């Protein structure tokens, strides 16, 4: 389960993980198209286009509630980042070179 503050932070950030994005896209795509097919048949046999509209609009509203906000169900597959390398080790050789060259320059000036 996700805590209230965590949920608030999630909704505020507004981003889903990559798997969640794909799932949310597929869900809205298939739900709204399925409602279109069902609504068309319902409207055709009842001879009222209002029913078709109600199906499509109602499903779109439902989908907007479920797929639009980044609910925790769309953030179940966070990207596993690599452990960051130690910064100091990375920078050490550069720093050494700079210092050595600086020393050489200083020596030249002295001569």
């Amino acid at each position: 389960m996700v805590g209230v503050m965590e949920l608030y932070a999630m909704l505020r950030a507004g981003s889903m993980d990559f798997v969640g994005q794909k799932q949310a896209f597929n869900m809205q795509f298939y739900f709204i198209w399925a409602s279109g097919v069902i609504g068309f048949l319902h409207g055709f046999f009842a001879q009222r286009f209002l029913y078709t509209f109600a199906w499509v609009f109602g499903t779109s509203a439902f989908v907007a509630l479920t797929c639009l906000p980044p609910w925790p169900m769309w953030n179940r597959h966070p990207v596993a980042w690599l452990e960051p390398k130690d910064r100091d080790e990375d920078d050490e050789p550069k720093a050494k070179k700079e210092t050595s060259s600086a020393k050489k320059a200083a020596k030249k000036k002295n001569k």
Partner: protein
Amino acid sequence: MFRRFRLSIRSVFATPPWVVLCAGGAPTRGMDTYSARANTIFCTFCTVLGTTAVLSHLSTFLPMDQFDVRTSGNVQLNMVHDLIPNSHLNSDQSFLSFHLNHNLSQEFHWNMNQLFLYLVVTYNDTASNMRNEVTVYDKIIRSPEAARFKQRNLMNEYPLRDQFRELRDQKAPVCQSFTG
């Protein structure tokens, strides 16, 4: 820069074309925000609603009973109340009454909810005009119940007015028309 451009093109074409068509765009990659998702949902909604609307229109051409049109209508002139010159407009005008009955309820189906009915008086070959058409009566029919109608002695709503003073001695056939 160039590499980025190639990547974005590839991501668009990596999406199957039918998904791009049906959802109004490729699913967004990388930029995933509220507005991007709202745009996707809204595009799908519009595409589906538009598709059902087009299919609804096409379905009316199906050879089925509810799309079969069997209408009947009949207009009879009751009497010409007056035929006087309108000196202000310099034209002849006439008031008349008629009997009207029609049954257009078969016109209604899920893609036809309103009819505009109008009564046209036609008389040809006056001195100035080859063809004259004057609308003397109209109404809007909003339900199949209202499309069944029978009434005697209806007055015209708009006077039968000629462009000039050439209405006298004309035999005018009355014709009833309606549009969806």
